[in-house]
């Protein structure tokens, strides 16, 4: 199976490293879509379908927390699995994002193995 992956991060550099690591992890990706914040991501999702969202938390205009709230209120989008990729590794933040519906949480810095393992686990669970 080939996946369409949306990367939401306000850092072009981090978007690029995530794309590169997902690619070398062996996950078959047909297309990467990228957005610089939650508003841009939700706008993209109006006209595109994706199988997985990888999102940062701290972003200008609309952060990961607000984006998750809006995703979960949308019946067309609420099923899309979301993995948070953030520098914020506090237990409070992890718990908050999971309560908002994130299926996985990866704190930066991360190894390619860690990213691959969480993505596979989330995709297997969501397609089971």
């Amino acid at each position: 199976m080939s996946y369409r992956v949306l990367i939401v991060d306000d850092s072009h550099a981090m978007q690029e490293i995530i794309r590169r690591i997902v690619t070398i992890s062996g996950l078959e990706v047909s297309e990467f879509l990228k957005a610089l914040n939650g508003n841009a991501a939700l706008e993209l999702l109006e006209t595109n379908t994706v199988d997985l969202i990888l999102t940062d938390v701290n972003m200008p205009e609309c952060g990961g927390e607000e984006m998750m709230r809006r995703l979960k209120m949308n019946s067309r989008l609420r099923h899309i699995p979301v993995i948070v990729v953030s520098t914020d590794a506090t237990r409070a933040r992890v718990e908050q994002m999971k309560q908002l519906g994130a299926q996985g949480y990866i704190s930066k810095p991360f190894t390619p193995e860690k990213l691959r393992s969480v993505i596979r686990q989330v995709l297997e669970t969501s397609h089971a």
Partner: protein
Amino acid sequence: MLEIGLSEQLLGCVLRECAEEVLGTMLFSEILGERSGDDLRAHNLLGATLSISGPLSGIFRTVVSEPAATALAADFLGLDETPGPTRVQQVINELANMICGSALSRIEPEALFTLGDPEPASDPFPPNGVFQCFELTEGLLAVSIEFTS
């Protein structure tokens, strides 16, 4: 408000641990040893400053000597060619984000913090706070954190 329960020495150890973890995991670099902050004066520096807000407020800063910043950015982005200044600054911003986020999760794991957008910084010295300067293969990297409340 929380009060930070770590001594300056322990906070310095946390900064070193976090810098080592970030450099080793995502930038394919390592700390070779500690250096005096005065050694930075001989270099052109690139850096990023982040504001910290939440139960603790403050400022986090990372500065890197220019050749080291360029080499780290190329490794981080997986480039064979030399990255331009914009991309180098983006990587330094992300480096600051990662070290700061990692440090805060060790200092106060139960708290919710917000980091401001990284702003370019070339002055390594905060008026107060904990400061650490490291030698890398490619040059120097310094980190500092100052809590104001």
